[in-house]
């Protein structure tokens, strides 16, 4: 994104910050939902867009953030809780990255898919056998408008970092890796390090989103926090919008949040099937995302 575009986007975020002053019911809830997925999908695309490594670990990091709040929320001041959530997320991502990012893309998908489930089982085991509970109440003093503002803040920060990245040598290295990893290695790029760094940066934002969202629930258990559906929804949103550009994922988030809202309200029992159908439709009908469609339309208009 150019400097001007970034400034405009940040100004728009400031303006959107007024939503809670206008309505604190349905519209705020919807705005929170969109902001949540905007941060998740953009953070996902930060790593998976240029590298083309499909990560299904979103639910794992989101859950880590949310659960950290459930455990530490009462014990520490809020900024420290966020710091802990982000820190744990980054730590796990570094371990996962070191273990898997030297492998090829296929192994990575499978491993990240298993990760959320693995962590969920571990947390469940701990809760049942050590904490002797099945879930936890979330006791923190965070209001809905505060959740929303924090999400907008995270999104703004992502835009700033993404813009910086697109001009930096690190971002360029990431694109070269996405084009041809063998060439990248033979051009002097330490591919493992670059991928791990970006995966950790992405995980930081995913974990923070989980932490910020946790106070929305009064009660969470491992199944709520580590919900695989999150991983798939974020993936399909980013792909629909376009994972190769910074604002691309947002273009997929808005229509799909609205669609899922409608589907969830009207067909709660068939939600998974409809999600799957939406997934296939996106992959077949819009393989290059909405950003790709717009680019083609622009080329046609110019021709």
């Amino acid at each position, binding site marked *: 994104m150019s400097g001007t575009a970034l400034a405009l986007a940040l100004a728009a975020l400031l303006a959107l910050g007024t939503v809670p002053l206008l309505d604190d019911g349905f519209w705020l809830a919807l705005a929170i939902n969109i902001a949540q997925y905007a941060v998740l999908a953009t953070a996902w695309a930060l790593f998976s867009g240029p590298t083309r490594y499909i990560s299904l670990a979103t639910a794992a990091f989101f859950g880590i953030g949310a659960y950290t709040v459930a455990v530490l929320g009462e014990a520490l001041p809020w900024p420290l809780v966020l710091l802990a959530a982000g820190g744990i997320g980054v730590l796990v991502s570094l371990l996962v990255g070191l273990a898997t990012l030297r492998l090829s893309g296929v192994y990575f998908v499978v491993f990240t898919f298993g990760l959320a489930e693995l962590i969920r089982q571990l947390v469940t085991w701990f809760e049942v056998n050590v904490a002797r509970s099945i879930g936890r109440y979330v006791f923190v003093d965070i209001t809905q408008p505060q959740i929303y503002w924090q999400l907008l803040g995270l999104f703004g920060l992502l835009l700033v970092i993404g813009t910086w990245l697109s001009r930096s*040598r690190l971002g*360029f*290295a990431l*694109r*070269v890796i996405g*084009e*041809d990893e*063998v*060439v*990248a*290695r*033979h*051009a*002097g*790029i*330490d*591919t493992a390090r670059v991928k791990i760094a970006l995966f950790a940066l992405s995980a930081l934002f995913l974990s923070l989103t989980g932490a910020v969202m946790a106070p929305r629930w009064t009660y969470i258990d491992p199944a709520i926090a580590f919900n695989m559906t999150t991983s798939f929804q974020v993936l399909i949103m980013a792909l629909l919008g376009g994972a190769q550009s910074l604002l691309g994922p947002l273009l997929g988030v808005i229509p799909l949040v609205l669609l899922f809202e409608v589907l969830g309200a009207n067909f709660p029992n068939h939600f998974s099937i409809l999600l799957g159908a939406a997934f296939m439709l996106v992959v077949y009908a819009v393989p290059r995302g909405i950003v790709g469609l717009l680019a083609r339309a622009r080329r046609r208009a110019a021709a």
Partner: protein
Amino acid sequence: MSVPLLRVEGLTRAFGGLVAVQDLSFEVREGEILGLLGPNGSGKTTALNLVSGALAPDAGRVTLRDRDVTGLAPHRLSRLGIARTFQLVRVLPAMSCAENVLAGIAFGRDAAWGGAAWDRARALLARVGLAGREDHRADTLTYVDQKRLELARALALSPRLLLLDEWLAGLNPTELREGIALIRSLRDEGRTVLMVEHVMDAIRALTDRCVVMNAGRRIAEGPPGAVLAEREVVRAYLGDEDA
């Protein structure tokens, strides 16, 4: 005698039961073009892969000047000055020509970024005959131009040793003449080249010495004219009956 730029000793690499390179030793001297020859499947590409770090050897040693670089990762070797092209040409398809070259400039030996890097990329493109093509996407180039682009990317690393894997294969006679002139100009500016090649005219025109492989082993070494006349080399290329 002075220290060779590259020394390979007892290099061995097997794939399952197949020994692709076996106890291979040779030297590349500073400023020379060494040809690595041999029939199909004799282990030439595998040998290059072992030198560039794409593969790690099962046994043996690779020394760059006087530094042991055996088994180092390719990005480390690139930064130490070993650059290569690939037998099946590899460009960064969706990137522009300038960005393809920039990929070599930004992270290699003597790395640069920003305006100076773009100037160098432009100069390198001109050097290989792609002047004015900075903004063209790499996947829109013809085969021979992709080969030129790949060479520019390798040169962008400011290599001390350039590895070429059949860079001249598949060119028509005009392109071949231009290609030979281009590689000769690299030698004239003092670069050291290790080239795998099948094109006999190019081998005779360019190489100072040749190493010939067969079934993973070195079977001959010497000036191109003498080596190509050796009985065992003729037999390796033509098969036993004809020798």
